[in-house]
Structure formats: structure tokens, C-alpha cells
């Protein structure tokens, strides 16, 4: 079965208003192109899930796509604040944003439980912090064998998980190498999975620290070269640190942010035109 489809079609069909969506990536391979497609298609009332919501979550939140965010660290790595994320939490702009906040260990284990079809995961953490007071999805549990008091967190099962990878074949097997983060667990925990890739290939070559997500776990493969920019795709292009720094200025004021989104996301066809419109298409040359 050929799973290669157009990104617009995949997002249009699978990402419905009101569902929960995880666009995962731990600094590496962030599915930026898919987030832009969600914004362009005007998706609303989403519950967004991500360990490290970054620029694309700032964009989706600022464009009013999200009602709720489940996360563990929301910042612009090495730069500072996510201004749209902060504006939504501090001032309810453009709409109030409900938050469900965990630690990385909590989120990682929630995905593991989700991928394992278990109702919850157990970890040694959270005790003594203020997180259990503000987050309902953290609760104490006692080990039935040793009596040790531990913390439980419920499984995360996103309606749709979207990840970006280096390569896929037409059947939908997906090859990811370098830092693979939480992508495998996020994909296996989800009802449906969209994978954008740098390229569709006939056959995978072995790479250091490579994992392969088998096709049975994947619903749609979309070829989007450069689709992780301004994050990086190991073996294809480096992280554009300068863009992360520039985002601080672009996103600080509501008006400037909206104008930028209008010009570079809403008014363009697809991610290739977005990259052209921000005049960085040369970066993406493989």
C-alpha cells in the first residue's frame, strides 16, 4: 500500500477541529511544515501536546488554534521566552489557554504508557514540588510489592501524532537517526500518525543511532524537504540558530507577529513557498 500523500490532504483529513494533536521533536526534526498547514487550514479548539513546545507551538497558539496545552517545557531554547505562549497564559490572547503541566520524565512516561496501552505510568518524582497541586494528572500510588510510595501519571494517547523524519519508503516505513527524542513513543501512542520526511527513498542505508518506525504504525507519509526548518535534520541541514534568535523579535508584539504570519504562512501555498518567502531557500539545499 502506498502511504505517500500530500501534506495538505493528510492534515485536512486527519486533523479535525477539537482533537488532540502531538507534533513531537526534541530540538531535532521538529515538524514545522505540518504546523503551518494546521494554521493555514484554520484548525480550532485543538488540545496540543508536546514535551518542548517551541516556535511552532508559539505560532499555533498565537493564531488561535489551541484551547489547551499539555507540556513540560515551553521556551525558545537558548534564547528565552515564547512570547505568544506567555501572552496566552498571562493575558488570554488570542484566547484563554488551559494548561496541563508536567516534567519531562512525567511526559515521557505518559507517552510510554500510551504506547503500551496501559492506563498510567509510574515514576519516582514530583514529590515535594508544587506540580501535583496545580496538575490534576499527577497522583500518588503505592507499589503493591514493596509498599514504596511513587507517583502515577495517566497515559497520553493523542488522536494524531505528527513527526518529521529523514526518510521513508512508499510503504510507510520511516527511518530516523541522530537524536530520536520521544518520536517513537509519541507515534505508537497515537490513534493516527502523519510523518513528514526529507525524502522518500527506495531503500534505507544504515546510519548511526538509527531507528525504523515500521509502516504498520504510520498512516500517511508526506515528502516535505526542509520541513523541519528552522530546526535541523541530521544529515540534511543544520539548525538555523539565527532564526530562533530572530523569532524573539518577530513574536514579541501581537501586531508584528500577525503580520509576519499573514505574509509568510497564511499567504503562501506550502512550506517550500514559505522558505522562499523568508529568503532562506538556499539553506535547505541538501
Amino acid at each position, binding site marked *: 500500500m502506498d502511504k505517500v500523500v500530500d501534506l495538505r490532504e493528510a492534515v485536512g483529513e486527519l486533523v479535525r477541529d477539537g482533537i488532540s494533536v502531538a507534533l513531537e521533536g526534541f530540538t531535532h526534526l521538529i515538524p514545522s511544515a505540518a504546523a503551518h498547514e494546521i494554521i493555514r487550514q484554520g484548525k480550532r479548539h485543538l488540545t496540543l501536546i508536546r514535551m*518542548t513546545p517551541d516556535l511552532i507551538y508559539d505560532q499555533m497558539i498565537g493564531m488561535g488554534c489551541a484551547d489547551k496545552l499539555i507540556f513540560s517545557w*515551553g521556551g525558545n531554547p*537558548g534564547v528565552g521566552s515564547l512570547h505568544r505562549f506567555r501572552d496566552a497564559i498571562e493575558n488570554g490572547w488570542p484566547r484563554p489557554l488551559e494548561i496541563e503541566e508536567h516534567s519531562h520524565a512525567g511526559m515521557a512516561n505518559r507517552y510510554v504508557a500510551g504506547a503500551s496501552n496501559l492506563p498510567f505510568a509510574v515514576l519516582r518524582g514530583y*514529590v515535594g514540588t508544587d506540580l501535583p497541586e496545580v496538575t490534576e494528572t499527577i497522583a500518588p500510588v503505592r507499589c503493591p510489592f514493596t509498599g514504596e510510595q511513587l507517583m502515577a501519571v495517566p497515559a497520553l494517547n493523542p488522536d494524531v501524532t505528527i513527526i518529521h523524519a529523514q526518510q521513508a519508503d512508499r510503504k510507510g516505513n520511516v527511518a530516523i537517526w541522530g537524536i530520536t527524542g520521544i518520536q517513537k513513543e509519541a507515534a505508537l501512542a497515537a490513534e493516527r500518525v502523519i510523518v513528514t520526511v526529507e525524502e522518500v527513498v527506495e531503500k534505507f542505508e544504515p546510519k548511526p543511532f538509527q531507528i525504523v518506525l515500521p509502516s504498520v504504525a504510520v498512516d500517511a507519509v508526506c515528502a516535505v524537504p526542509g520541513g523541519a526548518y528552522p530546526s535541523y535534520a541530521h544529515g540534511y541541514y543544520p*539548525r538555523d540558530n539565527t532564526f530562533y534568535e530572530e523569532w524573539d523579535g518577530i513574536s514579541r508584539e501581537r501586531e508584528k507577529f500577525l503580520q509576519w504570519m499573514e505574509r509568510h504562512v497564511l499567504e503562501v501555498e506550502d512550506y517550500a513557498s514559505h522558505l522562499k518567502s523568508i529568503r532562506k531557500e538556499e539553506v535547505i539545499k541538501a
Partner: protein
Amino acid sequence: MSAYTADEMMSIAAARELKDGVVCFVGIGLPSEAANLARKTHAPGAILVYESGAIGARPEVLPLSIGDGELAEYADSVVSVPEIFNYWLQAGRIDVGFLGAAQIDRYGNLNTTVIGDYRTPKVRLPGAGGAPEIAASAKEVIVMLRHKRRAFVERLDFITSVGHLEGGESRKGLGYPGAGPVAVITDLGVLRPDPESRELTLTALHPGVSVDDVQRETGWKLRVSEDLETTEPPAREELEVLRELKARTEASRKGAGRITG
């Protein structure tokens, strides 16, 4: 001896805390700078672990983010995020956790979540990330932050990561394997917990800094050790290596992502 800045003194003092061969869980920013300085000077055998999954990372330039390609490129291994937190951190394989924070209190508890009320925050900070479990499970924790009155507060707005909780034996009651903070390194000096009360005590001043300077930037009545020491100023090699590392990082950052093949 060339002059040095307070920030350089802080990084060098923090680097000196790491013994050769130590397995160190490294946060991004100041801790990453200090850990890599240690690796490039007196602790070449230090194993740096980053929460993105890189174990035994040997970055030539300092990563801007916790998952930069630089970390995977020269690592002993790269594992998934659940493995890092479960098999490495929670399992007790980390000797030292190296953390930063927005706020710290007298018992070394840390806040990286929010300034003001949680539901109606004055400033929403990024949040917990990996810090709560690093603070819980690393055998020892070293905290690094600039010494400012707004950071060294009488009462945290939010406890994101536990230090010595309310002092004394109170941390023990939480059931965590790690010993908690053993040192807080700032740009003014070094604080260590009192062996009994666990209250942070000023044990060393960096050269040219007075106790009054530190008290002025501390939001509680500071305890000062009877054996207050003065930090050894940066050695030439320490300064050279630190500056080289930062210069390489700066040069690479300017070029990264804009270079075409």
C-alpha cells in the same frame, strides 16, 4: 594574568566542582558551559549526559539548545528520552546533576515555573523540563546562577525542583535517592548547605567580592561560614580554554544554518 569577568569566574568555579570521570547530567546554558570547560581542562574523562538522549557528548562548540546535532555527532551513545530519564537518571547512574534556575531559596529549592501566582502569573517561565527528576535522582546536585536579589528569594513563588525542602532531614522523607544540592555557584561566590540545618551557607567569596556584596543580592539573612575562603582566581589555562570555547561557539552560531554546500 589577564583580567576576567564575574561570569567567567562563575563558570570556572563551577567547572572545578566536577571531578574527572564523573557522570554529569547537564542542563543547557551556564551548566553546559561549565561542564564542557571541565571536560576540556582537568576532567577529560567526564561523561556528559544531555536530556535529549546524548550520553558521553563531546561538543566542540556549546549547544544553543539541548538537542543540537553537535551533541549526537560525537557521543558515545544516543538513546531515547524515556531511556535517559528512566534507565539513566531514575536508575541512579548520574553522579552530578548540573542545574540553573530563575529563583532559589535558602534550602536550595528551585523555581523555573512562574513568577507570581500560578493561575494569574506575572511572568510565565518555561517550566520544569528535566529539572525535578534531576534534582530528585542525581546523587548530587550543583546549582549555578547569577547572584541577584530577585533570584535569591525568601520564599519561592513555585517549587519546581526540590533541594533540601525545609532543611534538616526533611528531604529524606520524600524518598529520593539523591542527596540534593551540594553547592550553589554564583558570580559572587560559593554557597554550600550546612551539614545539619541544610541552610545554604556562604563558604567562599570570589576575589574582590565582600560579604556585604553577597548579602545585598540575597533576599534573606545570609549565613556565612566561619572558615570563609577566597576562590582561587582563574588560572591562565582555564581562562584560555573558556574563551576559546565561547569564541568557537560564537563563530559557529553566526554561520550555522546560513551556509550552503
